[in-house]
């Protein structure tokens, strides 16, 4: 019992933070309360502290949950990054948001708890619990906000696919139970036929595709990103994806599903590579900024999924590099963009024109993060692509890396488009002047510093993950 408590301490601390927020919001009725965010930050630090104390890999609650180095690292990453999203949700200066900031912080903590549970889930019920706990607050957050009906429409699409994915994962669980008489995620085909295991894994994988926005579950991405209030995008675009992908990776590569499921690698490779190519080509001609960013997430998700067919022992630190770079680049990009989104539904790439003159700081932040997403050297993004290309080449030969690089080559095009508009001359209907707060500036520069440091020396992650 004690060790269960010990190993659940981070989640528990977050949950306690949640209750405290609820109580606190009973006490003071202000739309935004500083105490809330203080509470959240405090709780996050507490849980990070507990995480740092954990060590070794242990299965507990009848192997329903697991804690190991990898889950620990990813959890720390997620908590740290959610600090940034919290900070960008609670914008004092914005009248439109100030009504709902309280709800936002509450819901965000809730879905963060879900993410934490999802990462270390090894059993279907905990997994479904985690996923739902992670998704349902997101439905609400996207539906709220100043964009009105449009936001509701986007949330509806998200909700549709969310329920679909839930149905699929339940179906996968049923099949799995039929095969193995247990709810553990093993897809063990020893007792029954291959087809069942393949099918169950396939549906499981589809529901993961929904969270990560791989094809064929990518349809919701563009509309939701476009219509959602732009200050939850830093959260929406990073943490659910990372949580689910890390779950898949650790499942496939540590619980050795290779032996249980034939053709599992083929399934993963087909979907990931096709989404790399499809996403890159899809993004080429996109004018709307948020749709463009949404689409540009698809190839990255595909690449991250590809880690799951590699050997965990080798690719451990490489995965962390990729996660870190992806999370922090996206955080920088979306948080800077959410600053000057005038809550208009149509926000085009051309509107970035002359940003260089308006706010040099933001333009440099955006440039570096975009270059890092495009995978240019001296940024962390290069090492992400570099490592995965090398690993894939070592195990699978020339063909898959060439597809990845083709995707990168296409992706370079639309990432360059952003930079060009930022540095080109100002036109009439572009952004008016605005200021961002000091602590936001500080946080952004910290993120950029992390990206650049990892780009300069990728061993950093190795060193950190030794703790």
């Amino acid at each position, binding site marked *: 019992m004690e060790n269960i408590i010990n190993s659940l301490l981070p989640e528990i601390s977050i949950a306690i933070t949640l209750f405290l927020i609820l109580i606190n919001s009973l006490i003071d009725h202000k739309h935004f309360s500083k105490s809330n965010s203080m509470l959240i930050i405090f709780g996050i630090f507490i849980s990070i502290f507990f995480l740092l104390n954990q060590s070794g890999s242990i299965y507990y609650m009848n192997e329903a949950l697991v804690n190991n180095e990898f889950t620990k690292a990813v959890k720390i990453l997620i908590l740290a990054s959610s600090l940034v999203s919290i900070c960008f949700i609670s914008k004092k200066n914005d009248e439109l948001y100030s009504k709902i900031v309280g709800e936002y912080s509450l819901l965000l903590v809730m879905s963060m708890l879900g993410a934490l549970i999802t990462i270390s889930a090894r059993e279907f019920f905990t997994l479904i619990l985690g996923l739902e706990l992670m998704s349902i607050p997101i439905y609400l957050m996207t539906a709220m906000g100043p964009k009105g009906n449009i936001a509701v429409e986007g949330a509806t699409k998200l909700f549709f696919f969310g329920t679909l994915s839930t149905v699929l994962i339940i179906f996968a669980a049923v099949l799995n139970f039929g095969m193995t008489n247990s709810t553990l995620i093993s897809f063990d085909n020893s007792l029954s036929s291959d*087809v069942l295991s393949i099918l169950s894994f396939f549906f499981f994988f589809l529901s993961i595709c929904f969270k990560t926005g791989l094809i064929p579950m990518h*349809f919701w991405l*563009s509309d939701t990103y476009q219509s959602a209030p732009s200050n939850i995008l830093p959260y929406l675009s990073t943490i659910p994806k990372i949580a689910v992908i890390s779950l898949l990776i650790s499942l496939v590569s540590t619980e050795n599903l290779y032996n249980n499921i034939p*053709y599992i690698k083929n399934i993963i490779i087909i979907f990931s590579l096709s989404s790399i190519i499809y996403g890159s*080509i*899809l*993004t080429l001609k996109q004018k709307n900024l948020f749709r463009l960013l949404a689409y540009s997430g698809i190839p990255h998700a595909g690449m991250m999924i590809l880690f799951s067919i590699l050997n965990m022992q080798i690719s451990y630190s490489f995965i962390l590099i990729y996660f870190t770079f992806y999370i922090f680049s996206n955080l920088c990009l979306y948080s800077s963009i959410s600053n000057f989104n005038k809550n208009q539904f149509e926000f085009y790439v051309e509107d970035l024109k002359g940003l260089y003159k308006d706010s040099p700081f933001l333009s440099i932040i955006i440039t570096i993060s975009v270059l890092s997403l495009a995978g240019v050297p001296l940024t962390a993004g290069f090492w992400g692509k570099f490592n995965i290309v090398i690993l894939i080449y070592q195990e699978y030969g020339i063909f898959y890396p060439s597809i990845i690089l083709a995707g990168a080559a296409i992706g370079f095009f639309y990432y360059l488009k952003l930079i060009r508009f930022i540095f080109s001359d100002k036109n009439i209907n572009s952004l008016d002047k605005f200021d961002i707060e000091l602590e936001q500036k500080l946080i952004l520069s910290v993120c950029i510093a992390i990206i650049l440091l990892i780009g300069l020396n990728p061993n950093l992650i190795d060193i950190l993950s030794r703790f």
Partner: protein
Amino acid sequence: MEKLIFILLLASPLSVVVFHFIKLKFNKIIIHEGYFTLPIIFNSISFMMLLFNYESLNKLEFSYIKIHSSLISLIFSFNNFNLLMCLIVLVISICVLIYSYKFISNESYQRKFRYSIFLNIFISSMVLFSLSDDLLSSFIFWEFLGLCSFFLIAYYNSDVKAIYSSTMAFWITRFGDLFFLMGLIIIYLGSQSLSISSINNFLINSNNYSDNLALFFILIGIFTKCAQYPFTIWLPRAMKGPTPVSALIHSATMVVAGIFLLFKLSSSIEFYPFIKDTIFYVGLITSLICSIYAFYENDLKGILAYSTLSHIGFMLIPIGNSAGEMGYFHLYSHSFFKSLLFLMAGYLILKFNETSINKLSGKLSFFTPYGIIFSIACLSLAGVYPLTGSFSKEYIIIDFINNRSLIDSLILIISVLFTCLYSSKLFFSIINFKRIGHDIFKKDIFYLLPMGILAFFSLTGFYTFNFFKEFTNINFKNISTIELISLQFFVIFFITINYFFRDKIRSYSEITINIAKSFIEIEHIYRHIYKKIFVQMGSFVGWFDRNIIDGFVNFLPYIMVNTSNYFQKIQDGFIRGYASKFLILIILSIILFGITFNV
């Protein structure tokens, strides 16, 4: 001493540049004279040095570049042949410099600078060319000659014809120069050195395919520079340039530089019969056609140009006839009277502003200094004894007649005949024997001095002949008086005939003239080649590159962008559409999966 001469040679163009720079900065206080005075001084000093202590000079070597791990060096040697060439060049160039000081005097100083700088670069590089004793340095200064001629022909650039002819001249000569370069490289790989002597030894010893080819390439270079057939056309067109330039470059020095080079190589050419025959026949044909054409020509400078061509042909004939020194001798004697004629022509054209000799007929009185000088020049051109022109021509003709078949000799005789005809035509049409026109022809020292010097050399045949013999200590075998008298009779006879029945001769020789015309005027062929090959090929390749290759390059992004547009349409934003597409994709993927891995 040698170094000092080099410094002087380089100093004369440099002084012009410095002077021009000063003039640009302080326009007021400087007068225009510096453009010509300083070079004249420098050149005359180097002339004196070369003339008075040529025994004490010994060869210079500058190591230039390492090829095939052996160092090529530029060698400049002061042996007698080179020195004689230098002296000729310097004499004529000093005369031309003095002449053109007056000739150019009323131009703007920018144009004066342009004229003077390239003239001086030409003089220096020509002297260095004649001093150079290896093929690489010869090639280098050979190219510089072409450069200066290019700029000087295009000097009157308000006239489009001048620009065209200069460009054409440059292209043709450049074409030849590149062949020269190829031949040089081919030879160099065989004989690991480029100095003339070692190349001669090498060529004498090894006589294989590549050496023949190399010599042939060098010959092409020489023919283009000497404007031999079929590259004749650029020299008459080059007469668009200022006349002193024609006097220096296109009669005496540049166009005969190739002859000098061949003369240096003549000891090895002995052993290459194919090369010998090529030289011989090209020289013969050119001399024949051009002398006929010169008789037909009416433009004053045109006559001189074609006669220059035919005389260069005369110089080539003995070299192809294994008597190189005679060609050199003819070069030497020809340079004086031809440049003199050019200077004279320039004077006349300047005075009367006319170029056709029909307009100029009888304008020049015999009893003025100019008249006397002009008649000396004409008679020397015709080869009247004992003027300078006669000696070399006699030697060539007699040596030729003794060694060659009858038909060849006949051809040569005809060309000599026409030489007499056009020179006498020139003489009789320009000169009149009345004592008039002293007021027009004022005695002008800047014109009279250079012309007088050249007239002295072309008048005193014995003196120049002996000077040549002593300087180069070549001993010519004596000519028997009968041959001499018969030749002179031949010459005088035709001159007199031409005086009385000029029009009859014109009418009788109409056919030959037409033939010559059809041979000479092949400029349209060059134009055709340029248009058909270069222009059309260039436009086609340009079109191909811009539209086919570039279009094909743009093909892939085009497809991608259109696919992207199509994919955008899929994202239509309707849930039912999404659901249907999702279902289709799922079913498709399941089926595909089942097929591929036949589960």
